[in-house]
């Protein structure tokens, strides 16, 4: 909680740093901020071609597959991008930490916020795709989409927690940076992003393992709202929110433990 208060006090600084991050990223590129929109669009296009014409996996409730996949992938990209960047943010900003006095928690915060902005910019693409699919009669429009801000809450919480925890840990243990990519890969395939847990034909033990993945509930929540068009069950809400809060708290605790000595290790 003190961490939240510290961050709130630094909100102006975080805002400026986020702007810097975004400006620096798109500086000297012709399309600039359009890339935030174009990236997901191109991604969707590639998936649409590959998963319609090259091979076409089928899941109950997973039609059309490109859209199904896309609705699972978007929040995942937000999460994984945040975590990957968080693993280097403190090291990259080492000079600032060591030479200028500044609170270290602002850097993971900046990572989360700038990725969240990218995520928000990608959502219109999803929305447009849903409208197109509805007009073409491929998929009914999910009227639950207005609940989406709520579904983003646990995603934001867990990404924030992960960013805090990973950023501090990767300063202390440098090879975490290499490990993070692989851990994310593992997490990706164990989350119901490219498949749906309902239509799985796997041994029961494996299904049980997959259902243990805490991120699964967040993916399902998002997809129920933004693709399937059903109001998620209260149980799913509860699990997802609990996972989000737990992720945040865990990350904050890890960060708090290392906070004081970060500067010495950077």
């Amino acid at each position, binding site marked *: 909680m003190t961490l939240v208060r510290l961050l709130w006090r630094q909100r*102006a600084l975080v805002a400026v740093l986020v702007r810097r991050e975004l*400006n*620096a990223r798109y500086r000297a590129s012709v399309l600039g901020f359009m890339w935030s929109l174009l990236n997901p669009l191109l991604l969707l296009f590639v998936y649409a071609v590959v998963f319609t014409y090259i091979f076409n996996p089928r899941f109950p409730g997973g039609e059309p597959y490109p859209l199904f996949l896309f609705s699972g992938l978007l929040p995942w990209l937000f999460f994984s991008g945040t975590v990957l960047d968080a693993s280097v943010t403190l090291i990259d900003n080492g000079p600032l930490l*060591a*030479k200028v*006095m500044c609170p270290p928690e602002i850097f993971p915060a900046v990572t989360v916020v700038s990725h969240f902005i990218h995520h928000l910019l990608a959502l219109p693409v999803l929305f447009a795709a849903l409208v197109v699919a509805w007009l073409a009669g491929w998929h009914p429009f999910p009227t639950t989409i207005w609940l989406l801000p709520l579904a983003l809450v646990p995603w934001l919480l867990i990404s924030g927690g992960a960013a805090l925890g990973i950023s501090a840990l990767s300063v202390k243990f440098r090879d975490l940076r290499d490990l993070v990519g692989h851990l994310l890969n593992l997490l990706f395939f164990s989350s119901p992003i490219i498949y749906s847990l309902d239509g799985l034909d796997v041994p029961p033990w494996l299904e049980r393992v997959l259902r243990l993945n805490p991120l699964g509930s967040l993916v399902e929540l998002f997809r129920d709202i933004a693709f399937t068009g059903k109001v998620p069950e209260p149980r799913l809400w509860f699990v997802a929110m609990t996972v989000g809060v737990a992720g945040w708290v865990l990350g904050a605790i890890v960060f708090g433990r290392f906070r004081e000595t970060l500067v010495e290790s950077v």
Partner: protein
Amino acid sequence: MKGRLCFSGVRKVYRWRGSRVRNESVKGAVLGSWWRRRTVKHEAHVALDGVDLEIVPGESVALIGPNGSGKSTMLKLAGGILKPTEGDVDVGGRVTALIELGAGFHPEITGRENVLINGMLLGLDRKEVESRLPEILDFAGIGDFIDQPVKTYSSGMYVRLGFAVAVAVEPDVLLIDEVLSVGDEAFTRRCLDRLARMRQAGVTMVLVSHDLDLVEAFADRAVYLRAGRIRAEGDVGKVIARYRADVAGRTTQPRKDSGSDVRVIEEGRRWGCGEVEIRSVELVSEVGSMRLIPTGTPCALRIRTRADREIDNFVIGVAWHRADGTLVAGHNTDLDGLVPRRLTGESEIRCAYDALDLTPGDYVVDVAVHTKDGKAYDYWCKALAVKVTAGAEWPGVWNPPRQWEWDDGVFD
């Protein structure tokens, strides 16, 4: 209290786990923890060991000592970048650290944006940075480059901008770590001038430097650190002498403090019969004693003397030289028409200057007390060294206050 800085019983230990290689791997942490617990002790480096130091508002203190003696650690503790392992560091007001100029500039974005971010990192809010922007740009003097990405800057421009931002924060305490040695001479002079002005404005300063001449010019007090402990503290000249002596591998002879032994001629520098002794010579301005003084500052030479018996035949004289030996000015009480009455016990004589209109550079002051016919009571060459600073450099020694006037159309 604003501008106060207090170290009490500060100990700082850097720890690293593992033996030779710093333990930076997950494997090491997971597999190594139980193993290490019984084999290798935690290695630690004691950077500071029981440091007590109090710096009052407006004071300039220099930290000197060999590399690794804990000077930079002290600065970082004062700046809140590091936390003490034991003890307390208490700082009043806003602190700015000039540790690495331009640290944290992002190469891809413009100077203007970087100034904003750096200013905010140093504790200003957005509006404050914006209102100080003209002043910052003026000092940095980088012109239109301000709207170019910082990666296009020369290293000099980079450093200038960094310095300009850091001092624009108007801190109560300014921490300076060797930053004055970067940049060209003109820049260093401008920085010194700026720092001298801030000092006059009452900013507390802590300076770390290996440039002992600078330390002598800049600080009111010096602290000599070695191996994490304070070895000597106090008068700049004495502390530097102690440090130099230590570096040379010997200890100084405990010198008898003042008294009658001034009779002894100090090798080509000081002589006299000793009936009157010059106790101290200082250049004082409104804010106190200064060795680093911006050009044009009103100031006075304060000469303290002591006479064991009453003396009625005396002249007090002052000569200013440039460091290269050029005589700049010479004046004495006799030439200025003062009639001596008596000098007895402790006395203080001040020679006040409306404005020190000298060009920037190093100056030395000789001070003498002698009889009307020139017999020296105490003739002290180079009794005081001062550094005059300015934002620019002019040839010559006189820097008169001036005003250019012209017919219409000659200048813009």
